[in-house]
Structure formats: C-alpha cells, structure tokens
C-alpha cells in the first residue's frame, strides 16, 4: 500500500525542500520505490536541490493538462536508482494546479511507487492546500522560533479540518514533528525554543531533530541532498528520521544537547 507524505510548514525558509530531498533520498536508499513531487509551482526549487535542473523538460502542469504522460515528466535521480522527481513548473502560477488533476497523478503514481513525497510551498494558499489535501502522513517542519511554531500550528489545524482524510471522515493524517536548524548551544543560552517547548505547543510526536549546519547550504548549492554528505551530522539526523519513519525502534534522539568537547578536541581547536 503506497503512502502519500506531505512535507509542510506554513512558514517559508524552514527547510521543507531540503527535507523533501533528503527524506525521499533516504527512503529510496532503503530500497523503496519513491517519487518526490515539487508543488511549488512558480518558484520551483526541488530540482536545484536534487541537482537535476538541467534535465527538466516537462513538469507537473504539463501532466495535469494532459500534454505529456507521467513517464515523460518523471526524472530519475542521479544518486538513487529508486528515486524519481516530478518537477514543478517555473512559468505557471499556483492556480494551474487543480485537485482533480493532482488526484489523477497521485493515483497513477501509486501503481508504481511505495512512497510519494509532496514538497509543499510555504503559506496556506491553494498550492500548499493542494499539496496536503491527499496526504496520508505529514512531516511538519518547524524551526525553533515562535513564528515558525505558530505557522506549524496553523498548518496542523488545517490538516485536521480540511485534508481529504478529514473531509471523508477517515483516520486523521498521521502527523510527525521535524525540528530543523536546531542549535543546542543557542537553546541553552535561551535564544531558541527547545524541542520540549515546541512539543509543548504543537503536541504531536517528534520524528527527528536536524542540527543547524553550514553543510546544508553547501549541499544545496552543489545540488546534492544533504543525506548524501559524508561524515555530516545532518546526514546522520536525516537517516535517523527515515529510520523512525520506517518504524525502527530504539533510535536515540541525537543532536538535541550540546556535545561536550573532548580534551584533545579543545586542544586542537576542533569545532
């Protein structure tokens, strides 16, 4: 049974696309047939993060309008065999997405793929709504600051009231909290909300904490999802998220507390 997962947040710039890229790559690395769809029509970014921007010929709007087949628009990922990307259109606006068209595409994708990851645009307008409407599960990406938490709260309210599952009276969308850009040092200094603070407000299960890291920016610019980076805490954190999502138990929640620097590390000035 294939699953539709929306990566959403309400607020922009919190790491939805970074998460969509790494999460879908992580699912594919574990052997799941996975497709990641960019719903940010007009501001497409996912193809840049995945490093396939030069291979985009057709996009989701072409498929919705019946101009090309789904197979023609899907792009195979350069790093993972099991991963495909369905890019957004850069030249159209969000109104070009319609629920009937998206439902048709999702149903067709469900025949082939185990996981369908929907990268939502920011905001609560039609684009974000369309991305979340058909979701079975939701990764709610939140930064440790009040405005981001507030926006995530709003999105959770909409998921609970207006998603297809809610409208049809099915089991509710399964919600996962993913805290990104987390800096335990600044949390200790009282400059950032702690994971506990965020959970106290949002009250949904935590699926992972991604530490703030410069390597994310480098990975984005290089067009490689962060999960592929060597010796990176961000990559480890995303692998943990995928593990928990797949139901692995007993994974410790890493990167939540300040790492104590060893004697040698301090001596050598390591970061």
């Amino acid at each position, binding site marked *: 049974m294939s699953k539709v997962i929306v990566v959403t947040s309400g607020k922009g710039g919190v790491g939805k696309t970074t998460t969509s890229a790494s999460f879908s790559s992580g699912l594919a690395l574990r052997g799941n047939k996975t497709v990641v769809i960019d719903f940010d029509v007009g501001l497409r970014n996912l193809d840049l993060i995945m490093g396939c921007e030069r291979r985009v010929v057709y996009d989701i709007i072409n498929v919705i309008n019946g101009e090309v087949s789904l197979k023609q628009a899907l792009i195979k990922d350069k790093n993972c065999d099991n991963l495909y990307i369905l890019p957004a259109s850069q030249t159209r606006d969000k109104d070009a997405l319609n629920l009937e068209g998206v439902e048709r595409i999702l149903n067709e994708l469900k025949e082939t793929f185990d996981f369908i990851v929907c990268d939502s645009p920011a905001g609560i307008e039609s684009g974000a709504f369309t991305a979340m409407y058909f979701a079975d599960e939701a990764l709610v990406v939140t930064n440790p600051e009040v405005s981001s938490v*507030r926006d995530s*709260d*709003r999105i*959770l*309210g*909409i998921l*609970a*009231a*207006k998603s297809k599952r809610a409208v049809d009276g099915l089991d509710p969308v399964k919600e996962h909290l993913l805290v990104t850009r987390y800096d335990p040092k600044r949390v200790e200094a009282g400059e950032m909300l702690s994971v506990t603070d965020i959970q106290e*407000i949002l*009250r949904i299960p935590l699926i992972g904490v991604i530490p703030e890291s410069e390597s994310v920016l480098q990975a984005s610019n290089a067009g490689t999802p962060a999960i592929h980076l060597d010796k990176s805490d961000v990559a480890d954190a995303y692998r943990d998220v995928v593990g928990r999502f797949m139901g692995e138990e007993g994974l410790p929640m890493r990167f939540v507390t300040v790492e104590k620097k060893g004697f040698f590390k301090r001596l050598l000035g390591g970061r």
Partner: protein
Amino acid sequence: MAREEPAFKLKISNLSLFVLYVNTTDMVQLKNQLDMRFNKTLDFFSNTPVALDLSAIANSGISPNFAGLMSFMLDHGMHATGVVGGSAEQREAAVQSGLGLFPDTIVKPAVKTASIPTIAPGIIPNAEDNQPELPGLGLTIKVATGEPNNSNILDSDTQLQKPVSQVPPTFRPTMIINKPVRTGQRIYAEGANLVVLCVVNAGAELIADGDIHIYAPLRGRAIAGAQGNENARIFIHSLEAELISIAGCFKVFENGIPENLRGKPVQVLLDCSDLIIEPLLN
C-alpha cells in the same frame, strides 16, 4: 381656545437593523440557502424587520422578484422593509412591491467608547473576510454562496448571531472539543456551554454564549457570555491566555499574566462589570 395635545412626534432614531445582502438574482438558490440556514432555527427571526442590500447585484440588469422574495422571507419571520443600494430599475421595482428606499449606502454608527461592547473588539472580523458581524455592532446578515459548513470548528469563519435584545433563552447541549484548538481556528458554542479538553494555542479563539471550561492550557482567547450573559464564567486549567472576556468585558495581558496566576488553575467571572480572575486552589 385650548391648545390640542400633540398626537404624534417625529424623531430620527438609530435602531439596529438586520440587513440581508442579496448576492444573487437567482431567487431559487437564495431561497434554498435561506431554508438551509434557518430551518434549524425556526424562531431565529420573529416578525423582525430586515432591509435588503442590493449592491452586489446592482449591475446584473435583473430585478429580483421582490414579491416572491418577501413572501419566503416572511416564512422565516423576516419582514422585508426596504432596500439599500441597487440600480434605479431595481429600486423602482422594489417600490412597486411596497418596499421603502434606504439611502444608497449603509452608514455605520461610530462605536461609543463609553458603552461596553457586547463582545471584545478584537474578535470583530476583518473587513476583507467575507463574514457576518458579531453582535453589539451587528447589523448584517450575509447569505453565504458557498456550501454550508457543518463542522463545529470554523476556520476564520463564524456563525450568525442575534442582537442582545432579541435572545430567547434556549437550552442547547454543551459542546465538547477533544482535539487541540490550533491557531486560526475559532470555535463557537452558540447558545451553549463549551468544554475543551485539549490545548488551546495562541491565535485560537473560543466563543460561547454560556460558560467555557478548559481542562488544558489556554494560550489563545476565550470569550464567554458572548451574547451578554453576565453570569457566564470561564474555568481554565492553566492560564496562559492572550485575552479573556465575559459579556463584553475583556482583559488582555499586555505585560504578561501576573505571577500568582500564570500557569495556574483559575476561574474568571464578572462582578459589577469588573472582570475578576481568581485562583481555583486555596
């Protein structure tokens, strides 16, 4: 010759009036939606005068069948008294059907600061939101063109309310909410008490015509006695609210909640139009 006692006086009064905004010339659609909206609350209007605002259909070039409209409005207890706005032809047709003419646009009276509004000013919807106004300032009814919202949780949407003077005391079952009330959500327990078992987050709004009980942190707003019931109370398991209000008396916590009340179980009540917050534990 003795002067005769004056038999009448002529004065201008400012009375609150319901205005039905007519958004369509399709009278069948209008009738169906009116039926759908008011069939459950048959006694909502009782020979209540209602003005018709035609500005939305002024450019349609069609004059609605006023006689038919008036007769099915009467079925719901609404007496159409006159029209606001509309084209010259529409206004002429209205006069033919025995309706009066109001000035072209509605002039809203300024709210007197001295009087206590029936409801906290903060909850009056933005002009950009297409929704009815709340009592106190209430003089509009809008007929929604969309589908009726059956959910209790209204997303920046609100139910129609009646001005204070016309409230028939009716008993309705307590509304119980057992999932988190999140920012942007508004819950209205019309003519009833409201019990919330989960967290009410900042930016969320609880409104009840009766009492409100919250057995979890209240971080948003709670408005009890929304139609003017001064005996309404609010019970809060953990006070972290943005605003609390009873029968229009409200309190905001601009400088934070006092230390002795913050995060504590409290009750809120109205005592001679003073809003009192007192701890529940002794």
